[in-house]
């Protein structure tokens, strides 16, 4: 056997070894190995430092470029804030009334989500896997499959956890699918699946909707709560366009995510969400007519969780 043949055989052997490694570590593992955990935990503060540096520098230069616009926006926001303040007071009144009425009707008050803030410290450089690394790990109580959100909407779920950092699989990743429904119609039969839309970077696709589903551009898409990973009612995004799927049988829609996945800085991990929520909602649906839906939406959309 000459040297070239030996080299070629060596490379083929290496390829087979690596393919087997991918098969075993990709399909069956749910945790990091000790060595991976060590590297992840060791690098997390360094990644955090560079991430902070990047954000601060970007914000600084962006501030110079956008100075005039920011000034104008500031004025507008102040005016709007004054108006919003009035609405907030009205909402608080309505919320109190909501609680009071629920108590009168002998409903349990829905417990709030328990959220843990985390900073985004890194992002997967390939375009095939939409994952981010955050600076909270199992030492902070983070577990696999916990939902990750921002004030704008759903981000994804925890995929791997190390001691001081975790990897989050984002909604835009083509490997992930989330049960979703259209907030306006809210018909439980019309639950579609939201998945990463690989043909247009950063967009999502809502598929498997029956042809008669009531959906139109501008509609808000929320999580259905099916599957138990994501709480129900979290905003996923907004419908950009609708159409038939490739077989012409079902409807599908292109969805603009509510969260800007390219500019994620801080996220919240949902440590706990009420398990009795679905039962409550079933009871609620059984006992009430359509007019009661409005008060439920107010509570779900409110990110402050008061």
């Amino acid at each position, binding site marked *: 056997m000459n040297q070239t043949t030996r080299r070629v055989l060596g490379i083929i052997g290496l390829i087979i070894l690596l393919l087997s490694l991918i098969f075993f570590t990709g399909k069956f593992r749910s945790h990091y190995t000790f060595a991976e955990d060590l590297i992840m935990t060791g690098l997390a503060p360094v990644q955090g430092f*560079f991430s902070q540096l990047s954000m601060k520098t970007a914000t600084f230069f962006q501030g110079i470029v956008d100075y005039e616009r920011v000034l104008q926006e500031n004025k507008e926001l102040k005016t709007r804030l004054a108006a919003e303040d009035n609405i907030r007071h009205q909402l608080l009144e309505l919320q109190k009334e909501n609680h009071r009425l629920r108590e009168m009707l002998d409903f349990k008050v829905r417990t709030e989500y328990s959220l843990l803030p985390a900073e985004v410290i*890194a992002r997967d450089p390939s375009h095939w896997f939409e994952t981010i690394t955050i600076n909270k790990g199992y030492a902070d109580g983070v577990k696999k499959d916990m939902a990750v959100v921002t004030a704008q909407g759903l981000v994804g779920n925890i995929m791997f956890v190390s001691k001081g950092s975790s990897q989050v699989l984002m909604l835009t990743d083509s490997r992930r699918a989330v049960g979703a429904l259209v907030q306006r119609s809210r018909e439980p039969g019309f639950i579609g699946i939201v998945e990463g839309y690989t043909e247009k970077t950063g967009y999502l696709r809502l598929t498997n909707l029956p042809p008669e589903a009531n959906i139109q551009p501008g509609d808000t898409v929320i999580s259905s709560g099916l599957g138990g990973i994501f709480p129900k009612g979290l905003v996923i995004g907004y419908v950009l366009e609708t159409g038939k799927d490739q077989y012409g049988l079902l409807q599908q829609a292109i969805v603009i995510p509510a969260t800007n996945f390219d500019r994620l800085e801080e996220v919240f991990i949902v440590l706990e969400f009420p398990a009795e929520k679905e039962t409550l909602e079933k009871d609620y649906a059984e006992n009430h007519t359509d007019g009661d839906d409005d008060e439920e939406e107010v509570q779900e959309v409110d990110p402050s969780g008061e």
Partner: protein
Amino acid sequence: MTKKKFRRWTLLGNKKSFILYLIVFFIIIIALVIQGSLLTFFILDGIIPDLLLIIVICLAFLWGEKRALVVGLMAGLLQDILFGPAIGFFCLAKMIAGLLAGLTSHEVYRDQLIGPMLTAFFVTFAHEIIVFYLTAFFWGNTVDLFVALETLFLPRAIYHFVLTMLFYPLFYRAEQKKYFYPSFK
């Protein structure tokens, strides 16, 4: 196994080579951290360049296929640990990319910039196609190859083509100045 055979088997060669790989290891770590963290400066129309791949290609071009294989393996392994869906995934893609870039280097002058730039352009396609098929095989792909070629691979290849123009001279100069082979007295 004799000491010499073990060294050959591990591709470490001697102390000099070991130091060289140690330096490469730190370059990869820095590149990975910058890549993952300083993302705001690098995203151009939704496309993120793969700094690691550019480094593998530049070094492969300077050093040839044998060292390129080890550099590709190292870079891929670290990327797998930090971001990858499975161990071995980017390892395989980057190893083959390094190998291809290393083989090309025999045919082109190393002191001219256009060689590594064109290599970066074509090897990016090869790397992305390997990743595409690995993803399709292990997890299933929803995107068509031709759509991916046009919307993902081509912009990235052009991006890498341009970035190599900035990175290759740095590595070329480091090689000329023997920064990769420090002598300890």
